[in-house]
């Protein structure tokens, strides 16, 4: 059992480092959910099933969904902004030509 505890502890630290270093937001969120599941196991091993239940439901589940939702929103806004910028770039030369 000590081996499993060690694995969970080291795994938690590794996942946290991976979340902080990750450049890709989606990857970070997926790792965050993994972190929540592993933390649930840690609480179970520490004989705190109440905390484990709350962590699994709120920490891993609902927070993960909210973060994914936020990423979706950011992507949509980024795409919309890119669209607008492209249009502006295309519009500019025409304006310049008309002025000349």
């Amino acid at each position, binding site marked *: 059992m000590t081996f499993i505890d060690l694995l969970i502890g080291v795994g938690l630290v590794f996942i946290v480092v991976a979340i902080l270093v990750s450049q890709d937001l989606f990857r970070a969120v997926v790792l965050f959910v993994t972190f929540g599941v592993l933390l649930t196991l840690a609480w179970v091993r520490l004989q705190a099933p*109440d905390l484990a239940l*709350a962590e699994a439901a709120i920490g891993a*589940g*609902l927070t993960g969904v909210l973060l994914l939702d936020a990423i979706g929103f950011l992507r949509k806004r980024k795409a919309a902004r890119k669209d607008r910028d492209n249009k502006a770039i295309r519009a500019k030369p025409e304006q310049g030509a008309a002025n000349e």
Partner: protein
Amino acid sequence: MNTQLRLTLASVAGVALFALLTLAIWYHPTSTVDLPQLVANSLAETGTEHPITAVLLNFRSYDTLLEVAVLLVAVVITLALAQQDSNEALSSLEQPARDSLVIALTRRLVPLVVLVGVYVLWAGSYQPGGAFQAGALIAAAGVLLRLAGWPIHQRANLLLRVGLTLGLVVFIMIASIALVSGQPFLTYPERWAGELIFAIETVLTLSIALTLLSLFLFSPEALSSQSRKPSKEKAQ
């Protein structure tokens, strides 16, 4: 060079924090009061058999009451922000195409999740479980429904608001019963303690589930991005 400096500083700070935490664990102060033993001694008077439920809803029930109040404030602010985006956006949201497989899956899964939630609530009186966990499970069922495309977010009416506040209102009402007979706030009559705690937990589960679900459904940014989408499609 700059990144190297930053990395060095970050690693030094990390190692220092790690050392501090290790020291804190190593030299933790020995507590003068044996709290678990104290709880176990007076567990019979609390009306529940599970020590954590006893602490949350009997010994330290004032903390729980304030926690529920904080949740209510958070959801009130979320609803207020959602209303700024106008109610028309809420009602004119287009229905996403629903996959028949997803419908069949949610039809079978959601009742099961709610059943597990009710079990966790009931189990809270004698083993790990309770209102917060059960509420989170039921809220997760709601999130699942919304993600599968069921239009549950259109039911933002009076009933939702009553459900959101019911937990806190009932909690405060039961807490004030003791005031009538001259006892301090939040004292349960000893004969009815178990029943009263379970009643509080039941309404709390409903309110917490609705609160967590509303925080997801009515996040103002999600609404505004969805309401913008139809107009963009029209323009194209």
